[in-house]
């Protein structure tokens, strides 16, 4: 997929920052699938995920000036926009009303129940996630896919903050290894 890219990344970024419509069309053609996949990891409902994807591209369009190439790749920047937009969506009132029986718990004691519902049949990243040990998997699920801070998780799971941080990092390193081996 990356090999299909005909723009150099710096060139593409420059054009995007000039609000070049052609560059944005190219961006959509080449990145929408991967970003939709990121969103899908958090929101499985196709219609809602589509809405979020739309929102993500609008956000990219609006925030493109703030992207700093020295701090990371364009895709990484967009991935985080997609992830944050997805988390915002599942935390929104309308989302929680729609789910009704599946509220995102304010009481973090329910977090573990939430993590049990993890769909390990999901594609890509989440599929890899299923291979992690449970103690690691739930922490990734809570922090990466549900956007809880380390402090919130530590409090909710009654685990020391340092332990949360260490476990998450260990989990991430394992994820990386699995991703690179894929």
């Amino acid at each position: 997929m990356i090999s299909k890219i005909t723009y150099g990344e710096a060139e593409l970024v420059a054009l995007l920052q000039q609000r070049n419509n052609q560059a944005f069309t190219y961006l959509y053609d080449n990145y929408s699938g991967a970003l939709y996949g990121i969103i899908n990891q958090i929101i499985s409902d196709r219609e809602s995920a589509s809405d979020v994807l739309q929102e993500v591209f609008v956000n990219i369009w609006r925030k493109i000036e703030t992207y700093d190439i020295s701090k990371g790749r364009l895709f990484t920047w967009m991935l985080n926009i997609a992830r944050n937009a997805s988390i915002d969506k599942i935390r929104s009132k309308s989302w929680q009303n729609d789910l009704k029986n599946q509220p995102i718990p304010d009481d973090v004691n329910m977090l573990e129940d939430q993590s049990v519902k993890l769909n390990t049949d999901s594609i890509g990243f989440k599929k890899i996630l299923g291979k992690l040990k449970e103690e690691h998997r739930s922490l990734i699920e809570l922090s990466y896919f549900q956007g809880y801070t380390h402090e919130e998780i530590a409090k909710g799971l009654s685990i020391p903050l340092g332990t949360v941080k260490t476990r998450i990092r260990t989990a991430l390193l394992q994820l990386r290894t699995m991703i690179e081996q894929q």
Partner: protein
Amino acid sequence: MNIEEYISSGIVESYVLGLASDEERAEFEKLCGQYPELVAARNSFELSLEKQAFDNAPKAPVSGKQKFLDFINQQPVINPESSKIIAMENTNASKSSGFRWLAAASVILFIVSGWLAYKFYNETVTLKSELQNTKDEQAKLDNRLKTLEEQQRVINDPKVSVINLTGMPKAPASSASIYWDSTSSNVWLLVKNLPQLPNDKQYQLWALIDGKPKDLGLFDPQGDNKIMLKMNNTQKADAFAITIENRGNTGGPTLEDLQTMGKAKL
């Protein structure tokens, strides 16, 4: 700092996936400026993540693309290129509106200046004509003044003698005076009263020398502004006489029409 340890601590993955705290992010970015191997590690994970995401990318819903394109096409003001165009259009608009104003102003100016030119032209014509009249009047007055001065000089000149010409039986009311400088031979005629003549007739002044007439000049009867007329010179004269002759008479005097006559007192 042991950078290898830092790289393998999971901070790279935490940073890239957006799980690092603000302080962790700041530290990571700062260290990236110092350790190229940290940047390389970050870049390596980013590429793996990107590859993984692309390899497993589902097909994005088709409807989204057009929606997005519609969105960006509806954002002309935020789009810097378009806003440049808008700015140019505004500039053009203001230029052309400025041009319109300029054109309107120049038309008004043209009309006003045309009217003023017409007005001033007419005034100039009037003034020129008035000036010419004044000049003419001035010249007339100058001439008259010169004549009167000359007349005054002649009258006051002790060498000049005055001969009164009195009315003859044919014209008893007629009278004139001759001012004659016998030294210089100059002769002036001052008409006091001579009747108007038909257009084909003129008065003629004669000097009588030894019974023979000498032509001293034809003259027309004057109106109210009677002035001294300079006539032909004569060295000698026994008497002066005025006759009525045909206009431009070159012959001798018609003595039967003798109007006035006076003897020179020599």
